[in-house]
């Protein structure tokens, strides 16, 4: 065990997607592929291994970032031996569709309504291509088309274009992706001076994690080391319904903004309620040195930021320190959310029928205690804050029977009849291997 030593992350082997922010703004495409022919599949992996972006490369302006992941069925299609397949995390082997009931993806979010073939055994490989401008994306897309023509045994089965605006704002209007943890050995500083960088093994396999242990890693070592698990979710956002909900419960635009901020935990600019409880502070929201520099322990009852606010649920920071049974550092994750679809025009309260939302991407070493834990215990449930009947007001599986409590003096406000504002359109668990592992996959002789 080497928990105390510098992990010496093998940055030239680790794919960039897990450790590094993408260029912003960016445009991109997610491709899902099916491997119909094993030899073609391996040839694809051989080529991808050459172009996948490593964590050694800068991903700033003027760049293209390519990340590759495989489902359980994808690894099987490539001929990974059964013993090796069985060494992967149980949740990964089951796949996200099989976990949907546990994850709260039921009713309209259930796999029976997912976009085909998401969640099925037809999805084998995911490729994320993110570029700082459309010219680069078109060039990358042309390369991809060329590669596909030469490999008839690899079929594109699903595609989703995505983007991030220069403002960093998503379809609900909020700046997203602020509270990322830093990772030891990645060379990237933390955005929060109040959060120590996570042990590398929380995000990348092959290094000690926060427990001091090595995370369970698939075998052989060449396959597992420097890999990370990825959860991919396409989330349709019901922006008009969200705006109408706030509109109907507020008497002014300022009150709408306040209710929205209370639900999210941040103002639209990204300014956290913990630091700007009364009104938005766009300068604070845009200041990366300050907008993540806060804790919650000075606000145990949630008068500034409600205990049930989305951002406080997803990352309670020091809120749980006195509970004695929760270590929040075991439930951190890298989030790579991105937008898809056209923005609903400002001020519009009626649905225009367009498909818009967020592609949520999780990266971490522990699907169960990171992604699944946060989704099931902290977003879909309220036991941990003493409100078992409340769910995350923005992304929780609300069904118009639950509410949201906003602590305030003299009397708390309680929003009732919350409808769902987010519908899962599909998703799956992937494994994003290291570069050596991709070469190993390409050279499998089975």
């Amino acid at each position, binding site marked *: 065990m080497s928990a105390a030593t510098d992990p010496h992350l093998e940055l030239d082997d680790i794919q960039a997607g897990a450790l590094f922010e993408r260029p912003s703004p960016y445009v991109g495409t997610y491709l899902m592929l099916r491997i119909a022919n094993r030899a073609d599949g391996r040839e694809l992996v051989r080529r991808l291994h050459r172009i996948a972006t490593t964590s050694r490369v800068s991903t700033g302006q003027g760049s293209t970032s390519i990340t590759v992941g495989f489902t359980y069925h994808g690894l099987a299609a490539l001929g990974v031996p059964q013993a090796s397949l069985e060494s992967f995390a149980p949740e990964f082997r089951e796949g996200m569709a099989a976990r949907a009931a546990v994850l709260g993806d039921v009713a309209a979010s259930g796999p029976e309504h997912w976009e085909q073939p998401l969640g099925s055994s037809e999805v084998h490989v995911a490729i994320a291509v993110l570029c700082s401008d459309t010219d680069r994306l078109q060039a990358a897309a042309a390369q991809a088309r060329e590669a596909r023509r030469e490999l008839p045994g690899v079929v594109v089965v699903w595609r989703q274009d995505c983007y991030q605006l220069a403002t960093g704002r998503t379809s609900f209007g909020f700046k997203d992706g602020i509270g990322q943890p830093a990772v030891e050995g990645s060379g990237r500083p933390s955005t929060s001076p109040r959060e120590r960088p996570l042990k590398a093994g929380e995000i990348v396999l092959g290094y000690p994690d926060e*427990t*001091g242990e090595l995370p369970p890693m698939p075998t052989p070592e060449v396959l597992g080391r420097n890999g990370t698990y990825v959860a991919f979710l396409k989330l349709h956002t019901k922006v008009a319904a969200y705006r109408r909900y706030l509109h109907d419960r507020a008497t002014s635009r300022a009150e709408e903004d306040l209710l929205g901020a209370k639900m999210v935990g941040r103002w639209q600019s990204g300014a956290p309620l913990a630091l700007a409880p009364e009104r938005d502070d766009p300068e604070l929201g845009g200041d990366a040195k300050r907008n993540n520099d806060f804790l919650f322990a000075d606000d145990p009852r949630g008068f500034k930021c409600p205990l049930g606010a989305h951002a406080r649920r997803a990352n309670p920071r020091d809120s749980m320190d006195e509970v*004695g*049974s*929760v*270590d929040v550092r075991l439930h951190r994750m890298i989030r790579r959310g991105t937008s898809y679809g056209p923005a609903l025009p400002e001020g519009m309260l009626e649905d225009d029928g367009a498909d818009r939302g967020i592609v949520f991407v999780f990266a971490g070493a522990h699907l169960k*205690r990171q992604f699944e*834990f946060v989704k099931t215990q902290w977003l879909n*449930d309220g036991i941990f804050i003493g409100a*078992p009947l409340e769910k995350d007001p923005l992304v929780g599986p609300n069904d118009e029977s639950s509410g949201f409590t906003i602590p305030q003096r003299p009397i708390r406000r309680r929003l009732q009849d919350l409808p769902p504002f987010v519908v899962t359109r599909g998703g799956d668990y992937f494994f994003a291997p290291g570069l050596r592992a991709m070469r190993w996959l390409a050279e499998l002789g089975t």
Partner: protein
Amino acid sequence: MAASVAGSSEPGLSVGPTSEFSLFVHVKPGQGPSLRSALVDLQDTPGYRPGDYDMAVQTIHEARFVLFDDDTRLAFITSFDGPWDAYMEDFFSSGPTLTLFDVIFRYTEGYDGLPDVGALKAFILDAEQMAAAYARNYGGTVIEIRKAQRVNAAFQQVLDHPNAAELLKHPAMQALLDEAGD
């Protein structure tokens, strides 16, 4: 149930937000008196004295340690808010909980002690037995119950005010007035 299979965990039966959690272990030969003494010491620790209501783990409703079969076996039985298996890793990462666990379970068989967290986890999964039946007489989490107690104390304080009857006449107070008679 294959409780002896290390690595598997049963979430426990639950009633509302609360789930049951029980461990059954054998006491190391000759260690019965030491364990009983350690439990007496625990009972005298701040937070664990009867009436302290301030255990290190704030999400458990109550906890009992039962020595039985002539002090050759130990049962630890508790009720926990949330599915305990989801918080399994957290237990091992929470210092005070782990220390408390260590001072008791060091006297039991199969326990190799800290700092081998992997072995400790296997020990717990091995000792955990899911209840065959579980019932509760009130709903609510520890947080909700403490809040309810605070609210009732405040309500009683209001009732003690000489003008309470007058104040509770407002139609909006009807629900409180209904509770004010006894």
